[in-house]
């Protein structure tokens, strides 16, 4: 699949000489949902604001559909939409005017049918004549999405789309994002809810201290970096670890009945067959077995910690 966005060697300094982005390289494929993960202040918003023209970057190039976003800003911005992190809306304007205003800004001819369809899709139609100040936080977030979609973009940036929204609404938003993607919109979202990235994205990048430290497919990433734990529940408790089991580095739970052994999916041997044989050899009867895989959140924390340690060493 072709790249819809190409970021090459982008660096950004703020006025106070703070380096917000350092030599960022990233390609986004058309049609994918891409999650940009990172702690607060890592450079996620600066990166998407640079792509959208909201902040100026210092060096490097950004191309959308193979067109430079500085030289061809009219063409590239027409196909780009952004939903900001904050609820930045004009409180005294109606939903209808707000959304139509956005469409106009992006150089599109008024299309009331499309805006009506969009507001209906986002469950905002019955609020179209309401002023923004009369809406709940969740509704305001939907208005921001409607504004970003008002000019039918091909590439949509969602900056922390579900920040400070309740669980129910978050799930609602995820459905909206999935539907948009199904309709052909490439989506790049920044989030620090790992659960969100895990649920939505095809690929993930981790950014820390202005640098992209990892880009990979979500499933591969979980597989590659993920650790798995096998939990073996026994009928009787293990009083003392000796015999064949003493060679394993496992842990026991409080009841001494559940053996937890962690292994990496990447390593050549996982010792599981041997472990199960040794449990049997030592005379224990197995009641149940289950495995747990490390979540993206655990991987993310591990990566950030490793990166921070490296930064301290340097």
């Amino acid at each position, binding site marked *: 699949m072709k790249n819809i966005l190409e970021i090459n060697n982008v660096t950004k300094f*703020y006025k106070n000489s703070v380096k917000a982005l350092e030599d960022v390289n990233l390609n986004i494929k058309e049609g994918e949902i891409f999650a940009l993960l990172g702690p607060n202040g890592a450079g996620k918003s600066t990166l998407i*604001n640079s792509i959208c023209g909201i902040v100026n970057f210092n060096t490097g190039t950004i191309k959308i559909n193979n067109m430079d976003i500085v030289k061809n800003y009219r*063409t590239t911005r027409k196909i780009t939409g952004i939903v900001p992190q904050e609820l930045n*809306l004009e409180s005294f*304007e109606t939903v209808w005017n707000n959304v139509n*205003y956005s469409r106009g800004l*992006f*150089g599109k001819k*008024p299309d009331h049918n499309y805006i009506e369809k969009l507001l209906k899709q986002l469950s905002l139609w019955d609020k179209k004549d309401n002023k923004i100040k009369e809406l709940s936080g969740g509704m305001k977030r939907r208005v921001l999405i409607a504004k970003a979609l008002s000019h039918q973009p091909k590439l949509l940036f969602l900056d922390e789309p579900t920040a400070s929204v309740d669980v129910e609404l978050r799930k609602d938003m995820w459905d909206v994002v999935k539907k948009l993607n199904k309709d052909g919109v490439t989506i790049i979202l920044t989030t620090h809810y790992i659960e969100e990235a895990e649920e939505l994205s095809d690929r993930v990048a981790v950014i820390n201290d202005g640098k992209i430290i990892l880009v990979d497919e979500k499933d591969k990433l979980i597989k590659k970096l993920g650790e798995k734990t096998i939990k073996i529940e026994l009928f009787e408790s293990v009083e003392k670890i000796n015999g064949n089991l003493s060679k394993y580095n496992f842990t026991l739970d409080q009841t001494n009945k559940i053996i937890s052994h962690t292994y990496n999916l990447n390593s050549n041997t996982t010792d599981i067959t041997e472990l199960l044989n040794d449990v049997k050899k030592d005379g224990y009867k197995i009641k149940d077995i289950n495995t747990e895989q490390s979540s993206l959140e655990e991987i993310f924390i591990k990566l950030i910690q490793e990166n921070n340690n490296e930064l301290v060493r340097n």
Partner: protein
Amino acid sequence: MNWYGIKAIYIHEMERFRRTLFQSLASPIITTSLYFVVFGSAIGSRITEIDGINYGSYIVPGMIMLTILTQSISNASFAFYFPRFTNTIYEILAAPLSSFEIVLGFVGAAASKSLIIGCVIILTANFFVDVRIDHPLLMMFFLILTSITFALFGFIIGMYAEGFEGLQIIPILIITPLVFLGGSFYSINMLPEFWQKISLLNPVLYLISGFRYSFYEVSDVSLLTSTLTILTILIGCIIFITYTFSKGYRIKD
């Protein structure tokens, strides 16, 4: 050109004017009426004529200029500062709009509001005194050019202001005194020679003088000087805005 984008900004701003129509129009009408009561009736009873023109009629161009200048500045500065304050400016910056188009939308709307208010003042003045316009086209030329120029000036204030207080400082401390001292309510020929020379340093004098010429064919300075002055201020504002946008200063981090 992104005409839909310019139109969107323009209509959005005019909509704000419509929403606050009463305040927008009531204030200049009341102020104008008060000027007529204070200056026209109280002072006018002592100064009957200036340059052969009835005093009440003489002050009309100055009053319009005073309102046009302050309204153009405050409309444009508020219009651009407000989205900066609420952070809704992100949308304008992310849109396929050039800096020229952004300025055109905001300044066009601010100047249009000032023109509407200017026309309302002319109508209000007619209730109090006879208003004669000898050169209507010239009058419109000055009215439009002044509205645009000072809307541009207001736009600059809106770009640089760090708070709502900042929007008020220049209009209150600089523009209003310059208008009052620029011959709005008198001819500089009535001043001692020293103060006449000092008054010639005031650019607003040239605007009022040219504008008054279009009404009654009387002026303190030549029409050409007046025209060149307004054009110089206009070009200065355009250069300043272009420079600021090119640097992204106070607009883009």
